[in-house]
């Protein structure tokens, strides 16, 4: 399995565990009536699960298994692969630092981080589509 795929898939597994731990923490918070603010983490939980885990392993496995692109670059640009990895995980991290805490744009720092997170995740998606598109083909 190529190095890049190993990074995507192992990071994906980390998000899988992390997202369920986050959910567990939320349930403990709710059960113990410790901190009601934990419900603000629900979207983060879903996106760690669906983006951090499911989408990330899809990217890792497709980079590894999809039909070869051509002889010179069978999998496409590896450097671009790392950019996608950085944008996706950087975006998810920025999101974790901002999304649960934003209150209608009252804190410029949190707003800025959320905007960067939105941009990074979008970029990861767009670059991935551009990169994998030529490998979705007959043969």
């Amino acid at each position, binding site marked *: 399995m190529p190095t890049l795929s190993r990074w995507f898939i192992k990071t994906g597994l980390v998000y899988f565990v992390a997202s369920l731990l986050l959910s567990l923490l939320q349930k403990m918070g709710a059960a113990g009536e410790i901190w009601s603010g934990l419900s603000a983490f629900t979207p983060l939980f879903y996106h760690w699960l*669906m983006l951090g885990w499911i989408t990330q392993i899809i990217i890792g496995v497709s980079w590894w298994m999809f039909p070869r692109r051509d002889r010179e670059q069978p999998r496409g640009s590896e450097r671009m692969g790392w950019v996608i990895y950085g944008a996706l995980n950087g975006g998810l991290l920025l999101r974790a630092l901002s999304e649960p805490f934003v209150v209608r744009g009252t804190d410029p720092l949190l707003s800025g981080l959320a905007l960067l997170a*939105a941009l990074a995740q979008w970029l990861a998606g767009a670059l991935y589509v551009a990169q994998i598109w030529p490998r979705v083909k007959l043969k």
Partner: protein
Amino acid sequence: MPKLSVYFIRAALLYLLAGFTLGALLLTQKGLPFAVEIWLLRPLHIEVVIFGWILQLVMGVAFWMMPRFAEAPFRGDERPAWLAFICLNLGIWLNLISFLIYDAALLGLAGRALEVLAIVLFARHLWPRIKPFADKLAAKGRE
């Protein structure tokens, strides 16, 4: 990769692009509110990423990779899977429209019903292929 998988996966990638764009708009609105109407896109975002991206990608890869038969037609009866592709996408679009107009309960029902039909048809196709891999004979039918 067989033709239907190319269709499923290319469609999935287009939905990824659309769904992430909706998501980025939502997150921007959440972080720095600029137009409250953006929140109307929230159900569209969820429909597009879950049914359009994740589900459709899984179906495309399953159609490609699941064990084939030793003799032609190697993937069995492909027609239900093609119908599933059509029903799924029609269903997604009906749902998306239903989120944007008033009084769309019936439209939403039709959309979800088409999605259910798509899943049943796809399961109908895939069911006999959930089996041990066929021997080398099947390799001849490999794409």
